[in-house]
């Protein structure tokens, strides 16, 4: 991958997805450790977005600039939306929503660096 930050996000996202799926499998509801892990993911995603924005402000642009900006707007929303929607659910399906968010964060990192392969974050 293109640097330590996206690699960390992919590892954290997949680990979060695995943990959340385990909670769904053993019939557990949303809990504080899962929310804390979502918070960690959110912070990492904000760091990633900040660094990419710094590259843009520095005068570099990828070919698919519109798509990249779309990604930069969507990425920070993922953990927040998952926390909100998951907390509304008082069953095992709350953590299942969080699992999707973890997977999506990892996929978004891969796609983001396909849109702009030149940068190293």
């Amino acid at each position, binding site marked *: 991958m293109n640097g330590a930050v996206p690699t960390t996000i992919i590892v954290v996202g997949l680990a979060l997805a695995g943990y959340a799926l385990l909670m769904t499998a053993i019939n557990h509801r949303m809990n504080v450790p899962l929310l804390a892990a979502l918070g960690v993911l959110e912070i990492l995603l904000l760091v990633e977005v900040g660094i990419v924005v710094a590259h843009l402000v520095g005068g570099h642009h990828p070919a698919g600039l*519109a*798509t990249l900006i*779309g990604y930069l707007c*969507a990425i920070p929303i993922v953990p927040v*939306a*998952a926390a909100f*929607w*998951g907390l*509304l*659910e008082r*069953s095992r*399906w*709350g953590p*299942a*929503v969080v699992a*999707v968010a973890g997977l*999506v964060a990892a996929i978004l990192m891969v796609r983001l660096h396909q849109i702009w392969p030149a940068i190293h974050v």
Partner: protein
Amino acid sequence: MSEPTASPEQPASPPDSTRTGPGRLLVAVYALFALSASARAGVQIATKFSHAPVAYVLSALAGVVYIIATVTLGRGGPTARRIAVCSCSFELVGVLAVGTWSIADPATFPDATVWSTYGIGYGFVPLVLPVFGLLWLRRVNRRDSIQPTIVT
């Protein structure tokens, strides 16, 4: 003794039943596809429509169908459920038709849509999502027909 037990007057299946339980996951995944398909189509149509017009129009159509499914599954009233059944059915037909079309006539699709090759670019989730949507709607409807609820 003071512990409250499940009261019989509480509806077994409230109007929001399509968005609770497994429906919570379903609505989340539908919302994800609604956002990604329509945003992708929007960018493609705005920046390079002439490159692959058929593919981009079909992406936009998929985006609209996902938005309708997300909203109707999220609302869950009787009318919303009927619309959700229609949009999930349309989505299943769409992913099968566009998937087959994209394999049979790749020249029409120089750029991929959400439904190209049955949604291969999205891990075939577009193919299984409408199936789960329809199964879920059938289950909720059956539960309601056994224990009818008063819809306010």
